């Protein structure tokens, strides 16, 4: 390994890139040194991902050049990037679920004679790579059995095995539970000590301060500035990212509900993944649900909304009546909305326009005889919601896939607002969103509660739960293990309950 640690490994000079109707990047320059973690921050749509995709050859720049290890290179496809020692780890893992850890790590360059793979060598070599980053995972188990964090780490090991000395990570922690983030960071530090360079894209500023050596800020496709970690503080970064002051990202919670009007009551709910769940929700209340991934949070939401897992026992009372919500149609009909944690797979139809996505749950209501669409009414409803939620879209009939993440999430919200639900369940409503969009979503959640909607808010982000919730339920292994009132909500208690540590 070339050891000169201050050596500049990558220089991107005056990169510009346009898409139809959008200038994605204009004149952006960036440099990265060996043994350095360079954090790239900016709001959604600021151009971070586009810049990285140019670097790994998914897109080609319109103008500008890339200089790698002092030589001008032309990276026109991902294969070029791979051969130049650049590796990218995406938000969602790119592993093959049914192959083993070892097979995934060495995928494409397995030790082999001719066409025949040598399994003994493969697993031995995979083990060596895993040990280099102190990862204790059996290389023979299939990847689908691993947790998300473990999969992320395998992806990093894979990048290493390709001998990449420039590793790009695009929001690697967006689907990681909190306690696994530190493990990932140790991994990154190990990479750094080997003299590799890391470009780390993130929305979470807390992380940036933990891991970055330098921070580069992009806004609206332009480079706003590069700061050293010492020179960066949260308010400066936020100001640079969004171009204005954010008074308070998490304003104080104001109590708005009254205990007498019960909207939902769950009694002894049991299913294959849930055990004996009991809770009540009142009109206008925001009920937070904390817990690690796989603790049954999402399963609970889906049972109430009528997707998956039939009940083994227990009752659900909605709006005072005993209900059996066997499918989403009935749940929506009763007045329940569900913002799923995965807007790409479960929230939006990317091939349809903003308007058509918003009207999906109310097609029956905006049609004559539930058959003939009243397109004027549809457009009117969509326009009202787009204005109310300040959804930034060129036109009402723009396909949703062209919007930024934050605006896509607002379309999901608009969709459920069109139903005027009495109860709405949010599952990780702000995952992967930048600060500005997050604040807007929080504002909208609050507003819904103020209008009398009962809200269930599932989140991994403790500050989010703390600032929004009236009460917080903590779940572990399919059970409710604690309930905290707004007075006793304290971060460390939620964490310890969720992780199953003894209460003091």
């Amino acid at each position, binding site marked *: 390994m070339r050891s000169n640690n201050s050596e500049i490994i990558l220089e991107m000079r005056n990169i510009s890139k346009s898409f*139809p109707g959008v200038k994605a990047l204009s004149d952006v320059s960036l440099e990265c040194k060996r043994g350095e973690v360079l954090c790239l921050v900016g709001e959604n749509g600021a151009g971070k991902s586009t810049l990285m995709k140019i670097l790994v050859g998914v*897109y080609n720049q319109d103008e500008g050049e890339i200089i790698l290890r002092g030589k001008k290179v032309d990276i026109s496809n991902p294969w070029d990037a791979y051969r130049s020692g650049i590796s990218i780890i995406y938000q969602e893992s790119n592993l093959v679920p049914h192959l083993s850890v070892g097979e995934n790590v060495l995928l494409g360059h397995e030790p082999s004679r001719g066409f025949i793979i040598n399994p003994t060598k493969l697993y031995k070599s995979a083990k060596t790579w895993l040990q280099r980053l102190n990862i204790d995972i059996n290389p023979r188990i299939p990847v689908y059995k691993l947790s998300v964090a473990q999969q992320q780490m395998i992806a990093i090991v894979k990048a290493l095995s390709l001998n990449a000395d420039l590793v790009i990570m695009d929001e690697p922690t967006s689907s990681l539970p909190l306690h696994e983030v530190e493990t990932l960071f140790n991994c990154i530090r190990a990479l750094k000590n080997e003299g590799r360079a890391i470009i780390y894209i993130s929305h979470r500023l807390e992380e940036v301060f933990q891991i970055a050596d330098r921070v580069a800020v992009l806004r609206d496709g332009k480079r706003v500035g590069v700061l050293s970690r010492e020179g960066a503080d949260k308010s400066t970064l936020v100001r640079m990212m969004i171009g204005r002051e954010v008074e308070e990202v998490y304003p104080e919670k104001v109590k708005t509900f009254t205990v007498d009007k019960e909207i939902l009551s769950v009694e002894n709910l049991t299913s294959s993944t849930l055990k004996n769940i009991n809770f009540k929700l009142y009109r206008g209340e925001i009920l937070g649900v904390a817990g690690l991934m796989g603790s049954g949070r999402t399963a609970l939401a889906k049972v109430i909304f009528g997707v998956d897992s039939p009940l083994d026992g227990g009752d659900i009372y909605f709006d005072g009546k005993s209900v059996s919500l066997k499918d989403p*149609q009935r749940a929506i009909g009763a007045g329940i909305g569900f913002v799923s944690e995965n807007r790409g*797979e479960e929230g939006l139809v990317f091939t349809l326009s903003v308007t058509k996505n918003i009207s*999906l749950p109310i*097609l029956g209501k905006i049609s004559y005889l*539930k058959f003939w*669409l009243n397109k004027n009414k549809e457009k009117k409803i969509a326009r009202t919601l787009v204005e109310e939620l300040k959804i930034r879209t060129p036109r009402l009939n723009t396909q949703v896939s062209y919007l930024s993440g934050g605006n896509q999430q607002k379309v999901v919200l608009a969709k459920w607002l069109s139903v005027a639900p009495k109860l709405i369940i949010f599952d990780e409503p702000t995952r992967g969103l930048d600060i500005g969009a997050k604040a807007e979503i929080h504002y909208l959640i609050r507003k819904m509660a103020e209008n009398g909607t009962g809200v269930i808010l599932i989140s991994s982000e403790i500050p989010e739960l703390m600032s929004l919730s009236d009460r917080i339920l903590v779940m572990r292994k399919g059970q409710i293990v604690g309930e905290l009132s707004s007075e006793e909500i304290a971060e460390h208690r939620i964490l310890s309950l969720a992780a199953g540590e003894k209460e003091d």
Partner: protein
Amino acid sequence: MKALRKIAESTIFAYSRSERKDIFQFVFARYGSYVVLILLVIVSGILQPIFFHPRNIFNLLLRASPLGIVAVGQLIVVLGGGIDLSVASLMATTNIIAAAGMLGRNELCLPVSLICLGVGALVGLTNGVLITKRGIPPFIMTLGMMILLQGIRFVWTRGAPRGTIPSLLRFIGTGRIWIIPTAVLVFGLVAGVGAIILYYTTYGRQLYATGGNRQAAKLSGINVDKVIIISYVICGFLAALAGLVLTGYLGLADNWAGKGYELESIAAVVVGGAYLMGGRGTIEGTIAGVLIMSILVNMVLLLNLDVELGMIVQGIVLIGAVAFYKVKKLG
């Protein structure tokens, strides 16, 4: 000079090279099938001026109609994310039933036609129910149905189908009202009703949503199974209708009537810009696709080329279409 530059800036030249490339791809994906169709018509006219002779146009459209009717059904299934390989076999089955049932008598035309359409819808229902409720992949289910129907036909007719086609059905297959072929009117009606259903009804919207993202559609309260089942019922119904029109055109009972229409209808739908993954495609595009495939066959005949050569060209057009329609996703 300034004015000239202003004009240039307000047109496509205002965009950078890569922008122009993206715009071109976008335009091509949306309007490509029409561009190809127009070019094909021009080239055909140059190569063989007879192409524009009313008699040839008449024949061309007449022959395109049964394919068009099946293709509309196929489009509806494809929009929902499925595929139907059983349509051609169903057309042949309709042909056998019609010939055996009508016995050349005009008064039997309507009742037997209704039976045929009922059989078509029933076959579609079977496909749809087994695909959604038993989770059989559409490709396998409809392939099985294709073979099954074929077997039933041969067992029933012992390889020698009988019957005569009444003149009324012959009229629908080959006749004309004023200067328009009756079959084209049927196709036009099917396409028109199809467009209305797809663009103006809740069912159409639910179909696009289901094909675009089944899980998201389900979580938005759409009964996706029902939507998919209905798409196969419509497709089976239209395949039976196409079978009847084709029977009228052929004027005889044939165990292999409509052979190859399953693949040709899929090709027409794809050349017309639809995604086989579902969620995207239009009636207009499909009509263009049907015309493109039909003109290719027509030109092969006009130029006295081997029919096999026509197949080669059709294959190239199909692959070429998909290769060019692929639109880059924006990041």
